[in-house]
């Protein structure tokens, strides 16, 4: 690829703008697992990197078949795409940033130096405006401080590249300061993940501008491979090649080596992943020349655990299997990209597989959504909710939910996912119960996009949804329901038991990876080695004079195990009634409500 840093670029045209965005998307994809790892809380969460990536992907995909000659038009398409694709809180803020960015570029055929500075400023302004209570030490701060620097330097910067470099540097510095502004970040010893995501996007744009080009296909290939009827011809690189390399860490700086390898891999293929720790580096790449790659590895150190798969062949088999559960190679590996800072060991395998199932589940559901058929609601008010796990979904449906979007903690539905369901319903009044704090904002954006009368009931858990649904009144208006239901959910406590996905310090607790942690209404309050201990400790902390306990046991928990937990509760606490339901939810062995 030709790299020419010397030539001044004073204006970005439509073509370059497109390049920038696609490159940025690819760069974000590369970095998303790292961004995910900045997650403050050790709970399996709607990861920031993944959410920003999926949001940005939706945005950038909307440029794919746009052959516009004006930056303004492209930016507008980008903005719309981001709004539709927004997932998770970070995705929603990103969509607001992009929206502001596009607003500033209105009527601009090209983006000049000043336009960039103004667009960054407007982006930050709109994002601040879009958040109810802006918190400093987050992506907002990073966007603002970067924009301020850009404004200050726009007259003196030689060209757009220089202004980008200055801005990126300011964003980096701002990001470094985020732990000073947010105590939770400091305790967890990380910088803000959303801020990192924004920085990554800016970096990616610069890379694109500089011509560090990665083909469009790389960015959009994933969308293609997700299609069920994928043809083997679509696979550009045949061999999925993985190996571990043992490095003499006394002689080599491992981080620099990883960067080096990552860069070198660009010329071998795509779907590149290079991670490492201590003295082992793992390389994963899709290539047509695995042999050359092995030789390359040998030059770096001792090669072991080599694995080469022929994806074309796997794919053909897959297509033959027709409607069998997909083995989608790229997704499998994409999922594996998670948890980059840990040793490439067996340990990650199960997490990766779990992730894959998540992604698949979401895909399947998406297909359902795409079906376009009318959702017949036999009431005045349609009810949409979000859940994962057969039992939980069935309970919600029994309580009157007309459509359950599959999702939750680790799979946040996008604004568009909601919008499609909203539009398919044969009612003009709709309420949405998101059941997760990270899904609320994406749902909220739906009201802007639809003509229908919609209220978002801000439920943050399944028990809250159940409580809210108890007082559903089909004669009330969505706005009245919002008021009464949100008042009602204050009377239920939600307890959740899950396993820590990493070591961390939260709320003064030292949590080790795989420890059980107990949350009350989203706050981590206890941590212990067993589920049972966690439940007891948590109840000791939060149980007051509640009468009714409902236990929803998750995937992998047997009814007998749930009965055991119930017996423990009966023995140690004075509740009137304890009910048990198979929830089937992933990641959370137990969700318990007290009311």
């Amino acid at each position, binding site marked *: 690829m030709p790299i020419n840093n010397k030539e001044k670029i004073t204006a970005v045209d439509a073509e370059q703008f497109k390049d920038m965005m696609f490159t940025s998307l690819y760069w974000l994809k590369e970095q998303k697992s790292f961004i995910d790892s900045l997650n403050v809380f050790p709970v399996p969460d709607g990861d920031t990197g993944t959410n920003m990536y999926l949001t940005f992907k939706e945005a950038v995909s909307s440029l794919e078949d746009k052959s516009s000659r004006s930056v303004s038009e492209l930016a507008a398409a980008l903005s719309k795409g981001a709004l539709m694709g927004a997932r998770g809180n970070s995705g929603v803020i990103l969509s607001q940033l992009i929206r502001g960015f596009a607003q500033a570029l209105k009527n601009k055929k090209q983006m000049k130096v000043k336009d960039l500075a103004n667009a960054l400023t407007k982006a930050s302004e709109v994002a601040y405006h879009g958040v109810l209570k802006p918190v400093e030490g987050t992506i907002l701060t990073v966007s603002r401080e970067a924009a301020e620097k850009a404004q200050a330097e726009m007259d003196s910067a030689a060209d757009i590249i220089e202004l980008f470099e200055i801005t990126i540097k300011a964003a980096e510095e701002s990001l470094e300061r985020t732990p000073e502004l947010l105590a939770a970040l400091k305790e967890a010893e990380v910088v803000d993940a959303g801020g990192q995501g924004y920085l990554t996007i800016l970096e990616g744009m610069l890379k694109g501008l500089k011509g560090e080009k990665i083909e469009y296909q790389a960015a959009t290939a994933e969308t293609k491979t997700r299609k069920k009827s994928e043809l083997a011809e679509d696979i550009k690189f045949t061999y999925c090649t993985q190996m571990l390399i043992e490095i003499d860490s006394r002689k080599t700086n491992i981080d620099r080596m990883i960067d080096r390898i990552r860069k070198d891999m660009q010329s071998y293929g795509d779907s590149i992943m290079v991670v490492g720790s201590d003295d082992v580096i793992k390389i994963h790449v899709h290539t047509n020349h695995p042999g050359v790659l092995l030789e390359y590895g040998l030059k770096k150190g001792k090669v072991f655990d080599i694995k080469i798969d022929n994806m074309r062949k796997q794919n053909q088999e897959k297509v033959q299997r027709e409607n069998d559960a997909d083995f989608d190679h790229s997704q499998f590996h994409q999922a594996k990209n998670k948890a980059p800072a840990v040793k490439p060991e067996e340990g990650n395998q199960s997490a990766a597989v779990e992730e894959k199932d998540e992604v698949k589940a979401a895909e399947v559901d998406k297909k359902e959504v795409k079906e376009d058929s009318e959702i017949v609601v036999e009431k005045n008010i349609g009810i949409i909710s979000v859940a994962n796990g057969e039992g939980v979904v069935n309970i919600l449906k029994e309580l009157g939910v007309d459509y359950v979007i599959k999702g939750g903690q680790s799979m946040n539905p996008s604004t568009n996912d909601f919008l499609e369901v909203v539009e398919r319903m044969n009612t003009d009044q709709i309420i949405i119960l998101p059941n997760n704090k990270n899904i609320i904002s994406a749902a909220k954006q739906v009201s802007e996009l639809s003509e229908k009368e919609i209220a978002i009931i801000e439920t943050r858990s399944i028990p809250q949804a159940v409580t809210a649904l*108890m007082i559903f009144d089909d004669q009330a208006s969505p706005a009245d329901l919002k008021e009464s239901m949100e008042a009602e959910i204050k009377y239920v406590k939600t307890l959740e038991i899950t396993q820590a996905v990493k070591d961390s310090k939260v709320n003064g607790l030292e949590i080790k990876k795989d420890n059980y942690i107990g949350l009350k209404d989203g706050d981590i309050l206890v941590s212990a080695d067993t589920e049972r201990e966690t439940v007891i400790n948590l109840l000791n902390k939060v149980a007051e004079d509640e009468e009714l306990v409902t236990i929803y046991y998750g995937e992998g928990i047997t009814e007998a195990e749930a009965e055991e937990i119930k017996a423990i509760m009966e023995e140690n606490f004075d509740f009137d009634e304890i009910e048990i339901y198979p929830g089937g939810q992933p990641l959370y062995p137990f969700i318990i409500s007290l009311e």
Partner: protein
Amino acid sequence: MIALVTDSTCDLPAEILAKYQIEIVPLTVHFEEDTYYDKVDLDSEEFYKMMESAADLPTTSQPSVGLFMDKYQKLAEEYDQVISIHLSSALSGTCESARLAAAQLDDLNVEIIDSKSTSTGLGFMVLLAAKMIKEGKNLEEIKDKILKEREKITIYFTVNELSYLEKGGRIGKAQAFLGSIFNFNPILELSAATGEITPKEKIRGYKKTNQKMIDLALNAAEGSEKVNFAYIYGKDSDNYQQLKELFEADLKAQDNFEYQLLENKIGTVLSSHTGPLVYGIVIYRGELLS
């Protein structure tokens, strides 16, 4: 002389019926191949046992026109006027049977009144009529009074399974809170305004259900100086006993109104439609002349 007729769903105990010479026309329960007269042929405990073991739910039917004619004709020997008060016409065709029967009897003046209620709600109106007859009020006065007083009756009740009401068609399907996996208790209302059963609340947990039902009952009583309450129940249960305990404590603690409190077991016809574990409170915001 005025005779007083009601139907078997009024749930008044035998001694009261005897004391005021209240005549009963029974509804019927059909169980598999057999037909039983409500409160005549079948003891309720026996009936619950049959319900548990039978493959199909029992069905019920209004008294036949002939049954009413027999009753009225017999009364015509002694009386020249009849007041016939029955369960809500929104729930049963009993009033209609009575009307058809009355239309065929030229020499007897029968006044048919839709109580828009049932169980002790109907029972209260029958008692009111009985006492007014005793006091020598005329047919017109009694009728006017009852049409006025029936507005002051409300019944709140809960069932442990809604399927009985739903299958019997006594609750609108769209309004029914479905639910078989997930456990919650519905509170239903039979309001004199419509004479229909409508869902009032969905509650989780028995104690909360009982408390809510009590709140509703006390609310309904508010503003009246004298109130008549009645517990109604099918099969006895811990939950029902808890309701009584809580309600009586609350009643003693208040001094807003004077009250009387009855307790009546519901018959086989009503429990065919509610399931055995039904219980509730009937509120009549008025005074029964005593």
